[in-house]
C-alpha cells in the first residue's frame, strides 16, 4: 500500500493510449489540499477521483464490490465541474457506503462530464471527507500538462 502523503505517480495504458496522472496532498492547516496533475482533462478528473478515494480509505486497490454507475454532470465552468464531480462521488459514497477508485471518464469538457464508476466498500476507512470546496480552486496548464488544486473539507 502506498503512503497516501507521498506523491503517487502512475502510468496507465488506456484506450486513449499512454496517459499519466498523479496526485499529492499539500499543506493546509485545517483541511486537505489536493493537487492533481495529468496530461489530459479526462485523466485529470479520473486522478482527482482516485486521490479522493486514496484519502478516504487505505484499501482502494481491490476489486469493486458494487455494480457500474453512470454519472452525467453539467456545470458552469471547468473548475465548478471538478467540484461537482468530487461532491457527486462523496454523495454516492456516503449513500452507498463505498469509495470510488474505479472510475472511467468517457467525456469531459468545460461544462459537461460523462463517466462510469464502480464502488468498493472499504475495509480500512481513513479520512472522512465532507465536501470539495471552491476555496483556492484552480485548473491551470503547467509544463505541457494540466494541474488542478482543490481543498477538501475533512
Amino acid at each position, binding site marked *: 500500500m502506498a503512503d497516501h*502523503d507521498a506523491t503517487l505517480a502512475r502510468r496507465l495504458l488506456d484506450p486513449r493510449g499512454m496517459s499519466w496522472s498523479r496526485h499529492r*496532498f*499539500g*499543506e*493546509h*492547516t*485545517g*483541511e*486537505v489540499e489536493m493537487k492533481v496533475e495529468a496530461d489530459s482533462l479526462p485523466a485529470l478528473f479520473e486522478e482527482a477521483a482516485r486521490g479522493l478515494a486514496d484519502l478516504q480509505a*487505505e484499501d482502494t486497490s481491490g476489486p469493486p464490490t458494487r455494480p457500474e454507475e453512470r454519472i452525467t454532470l453539467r456545470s*458552469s465552468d471547468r473548475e*465548478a465541474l471538478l*467540484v*461537482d464531480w468530487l*461532491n457527486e462521488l*462523496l*454523495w454516492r459514497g*456516503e*449513500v452507498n*457506503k*463505498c469509495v470510488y477508485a474505479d472510475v472511467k471518464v468517457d467525456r469531459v469538457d468545460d461544462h459537461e462530464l460523462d463517466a462510469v464508476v464502480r464502488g468498493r*466498500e*472499504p475495509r*480500512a*476507512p*481513513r*479520512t*472522512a471527507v*465532507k*465536501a470539495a*470546496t*471552491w*476555496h*483556492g*480552486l484552480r485548473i491551470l496548464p503547467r509544463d505541457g500538462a494540466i494541474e488542478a488544486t482543490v*481543498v477538501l*473539507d*475533512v
Partner: protein
Amino acid sequence: MAWVDRFTKVSEAIWEASVAARAGMRVPARIVADEVLLKQIGRDRSIEQLMNVATLPGLVGAVVGMPDMHEGYGFPVGGVAAMSLVDGVISPGGIGFDINCGVRLLTTGLEQDDLDVEPVLHELMRRIPAGYGHGGRLELSDDELDRVLEGGAPEVVRRFRLGEPDDVERVEGGGRLAGARAVAVSERAKQRGRDQLGTLGGGNHFLEIQRVQAVFDAEAARAFGLRLGGVTVLIHTGSRGLGHQVCTDHVRAMVASLARYGLTLPDRQLACAPFASPEGESYFAAMCAAANFAFANRQVLTHRVREVLARTAPKAVVRVVYDVAHNIAKIEEHGGQRVCVHRKGATRAFGRGDPDVPEPYRAIGQPVLIPGSMGTASFVLAGNGASAVSFASACHGAGRAMSRTAAKAQVRGGELRKELAGRGIVVRCPSNAELAEEAPVAYKDVERVVDVVQRAGLARKVARLVPLGVLKG
C-alpha cells in the same frame, strides 16, 4: 508587509486592522489573541481569509477572529461576522459544511473510581457507529426525518423516547431552531443523512470520558453541576452528511446567483446571497433544519451514553450540562440591531441575565464548552455577553496549528497511543494515521487560548476537565 503586521494592539488581547489595511474591506478586522497566538495565527492564510470576509456587503461592526483561529476555506475557522438583515448577506461558507458541529457536556454523578473506563469505551464503540459500517443507527422514515428536521432534539425525546424531558432545557435554543423548514432540505441531503442519526462521524469528532481536575469558579461550577473529581462525558459531533449536503447544495446555488445580485467575491467559497432573497431564505431554513438534525444527533448519543452507563456503572445519573453549536448562523440583537451572526468555529457566549441563557444559569452566564486537543484538557467557561467585542462569541477549541501532513511527519500514531495509555488515557481510534493527525502537537495550547478568552473579557474560566478515555470517530 505580512497581513499580521497590519494589526495593532488596541486593548488587552485585542488587535485590529482598519478598513484601510486592504483594498475592498468594508469593516475593520479584529483578532482576539496574545502576541504568541497572533504569531501562530499569522503563519497560515487565516488572516487573509478574515480580511476577505471583511469585504462582504452588509457587515455590521468588525469581523472577528478568535484566539484559536486557523486557515479554513472561505471563512477562517474561528471567525465571527454579523450581517444586517436588511442589506446584508448570508454565506453558507461562513457556517461551514458541518452545520451545527458542536459539543454537549454531560455529568454522570460518578467519581473516577466508580467506573472502569476501558469496558465503558468498548461498549460505547459498539453502540455508536462510525465509518462505513451498518447497524446501530436510528433508521427514519421520510415523515420521521422531516419531523426531526423541524423539531430537533425535543422531537427525539418526545417521539422516540431517547432522553429525559429536561435534557433539552439545557441546550442552546432548546435544541430546536424555529426557522427550520424540512422542504428546504434537498432529497439528496435527506438521503445522505437518513441513517446517520446517532453516529459520531470522523475527523476531529469524538466522545470523551473526563474528570473534573480543577474548579476556578465554585459558584458557577455548582450551578453547572460540576464538582471536583466528578466524571463527565463530552460529545463532539454535528449534522453529519445531511448538513454537509445542505451546504454543498446551497453554495452551488449561490455561486450561480452571484452575478444576478451583483456580488463580486475574492473567493468563490464565500458565495452568498442577500439574507432577504429567495436563495438566502431557502438556505437559512435548510441550515436551521440541519442544525436541528445535529441537536437531535447529540441527543441520541446522550441516550446511548445513558444506556451504556446504566449497564456498566449503575450508580450513574446522566445530566446535560449544556450543548453549544460552533458552526452556525443565528439571528441575534447586538448594539440595538438585529443581525445574522455567522459563527464558523466559534461559540456563542451570552452573559448573565440574558433571556436566551437557560434559567438555572441566568445568574451565571451561558456555559461555554471548549474541547482541547486529544490528550489535553478541555474547559468549561461562563459567557460574559461581550457584544461590543465579539458579538458575544468565544473560541471553540484549541485550534489547529499544524497541517495533518506535518502532524503525521512528526508523530507516529502507535507511539502516541502508547504515550496516552501511559498517562492513563484509553483511546479507541481505528487508524493510527488518523490518531497522529489529531495529536496535541498539531494544535495550539488550549490553556493559552482559554486564558486569552478570559483576559479579553469574552468568558471566564469555570473548570478544567482532563481526559480518561477517548472514542474517536
